[in-house]
């Protein structure tokens, strides 16, 4: 008999937990949410289809495997990660959670996001759709894949993408 399907409440709770870790700059803990074979990707903002774009054949904005997810988290905690010193204040808003049918034990989950980032006296925002593949583990989940598709054509206003979406 297979385990009961995870509840919407459990999935949403997990996404909110991830957002809270990010807003609290608990990045090493955040990086532990990912499976060893995980990927965190953001395709080029002009990709014809950012969901299927391949970082091995097209230029991405961000394309991390697990070691680089951990390295990114580690680096951003350093004072010498100048772009994020002092750390931006961020607020991750996650909504419109849609849960797909389980595929090979993993759960495809989509969520809309808006992230506000303030550094100095300047506030910018990043919005889009996050596509997750969540791997159920014990009572909770780990992230096998996270791809953020931004509803932006350029980062003319935002400048940088040094926070984690």
């Amino acid at each position, binding site marked *: 008999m297979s385990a009961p399907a995870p509840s919407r409440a459990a999935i949403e709770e997990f996404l909110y937990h991830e957002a809270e870790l990010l807003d609290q700059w608990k990045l090493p803990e955040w990086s532990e949410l990912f499976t060893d074979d995980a990927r965190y990707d953001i*395709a080029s903002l*002009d990709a014809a289809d950012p969901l299927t774009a391949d970082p091995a054949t097209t*230029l991405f904005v961000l394309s991390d495997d697990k070691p680089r997810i951990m390295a990114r988290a580690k680096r951003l905690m350093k004072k010498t990660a*100048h772009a994020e010193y002092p750390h931006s204040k961020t607020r991750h808003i996650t909504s419109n959670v849609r849960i797909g049918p389980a595929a090979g034990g993993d759960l495809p989950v989509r969520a809309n996001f808006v992230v506000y980032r303030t550094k100095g006296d300047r506030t910018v925002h990043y919005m889009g759709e996050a596509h997750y593949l969540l791997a159920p583990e014990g009572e909770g989940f780990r992230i096998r894949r996270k791809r953020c598709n931004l509803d932006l*054509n*350029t980062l*003319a206003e935002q400048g940088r*993408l040094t926070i984690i979406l």
Partner: protein
Amino acid sequence: MPLSPVADRRLVQMDPAHGRFRVHRDSFRSEEIFQAEMQLIFAKCWLYLGHETELPGKGDFLTRRVADRDLIFVRSRDGVLGAFFNTCTHRGAQVCRDKRGTSKSFTCPYHGWVYNTEGKLMSMNANRGFPADVNADGGLNLRRVPRLEQYRGFYFVNYDANAISLADYLAGAKDFLDLMCDQAEGDIAVVPGEHAYGINANYKFLCENSYDGYHLLPTHISYLEFLDEQSKLSGKESAVAFLVNEYGKKGRGRGLGNGHGCLESWVASGRPVAQWIPAWGPELKKEIDATRARLEQRFGPERAGLIADVQKNLVIFPNLVINDNVGFTVRVIEPVSATSMRVNAWALAPVNESPRIRALRLDNFVSFLGPAGFGSADDVEMLELCQRGLLHAPVEWNEISKGMTDADPRTASAGPDDEAQMRAYWAQWDLLMRGQPAFSTAAARVA
């Protein structure tokens, strides 16, 4: 020639006797000077538009802003590349609203005038009201950019019909473009995808930063530490130790004529053509070593070494960066105001390289470069710190003196962590801003 509003101001001070080179900070903050730059520099110099591989098929087009002018770059139905101002000759509407695409014609959405891919007006969407010979002189065709020329597939425009040729303009930069392009056994191409972002700083700060070997340790220490952890290097073997102890001993920064300059440096951060590093594993070693061997067959060991081992940061005056280091990249810096710029960057790659080498190349690129890279974003922070610092302080001069000699700054050479290449830029900038003759057509062979 427009009268220079800064002809009587010495914004660049060169004092070789005392080893000093200074640039007045108004050059980074004055809107009046910025407007003068648009007229005296950007309306006269060759400006990068795009690479021929971005428009592979007939009718392929893209739209780009180049020095505050919106252009259409299009391959005609005869296969010829052309550049036009993106404005209908009727009332001015932009006739092309897509960033890129393929089309047989451009139709103005306002009154329906139709232009073909050679810019010729084909229809005015009216069967009465205009004289039959209304466009006899072609004056109602899409306006062609005065000059469009290319070197090794890199297309540039010039808004000055009387400009010297692109080949002459590029001077010694041609040799570095050759070295970069010769890494490919075949053609190079732009890889799909781009980085497009804004920086709240004067565009010249990014020009300076793009071939600055002096900032690497303090600005990029966290990237160097990442490299060391990735390759499990420590102590004397580490990238950090290399920067501290070895970097300045080999390589150089130099002017290449007409304001261009290049930083040549030896940093073993790994290159798909053709410098293997342990982090890439033994399988790739065979392939990269084989590429290196073929490179030596094609060019001999010396030139092969210049291609494979030397990281090149090339700045083509006034706003193009072509770097062949952790990535092979075209970076165009679009000035927006005295205190802001926009950056577009693309990845270049040999067309014939293997899929795993391509993947490695792109991964290398994105790890350091771009708005989420472990390097570029920290550079951007430095440029914005510079801009904020000099906007709000009465200090008048920026120092660009490191490694200053009494040689002609436009072609002088110094160490990789000196500032000779930036002085080459500023010396040219100074001549143009004062309305002085600035372009040399003398062939400069450097490599």
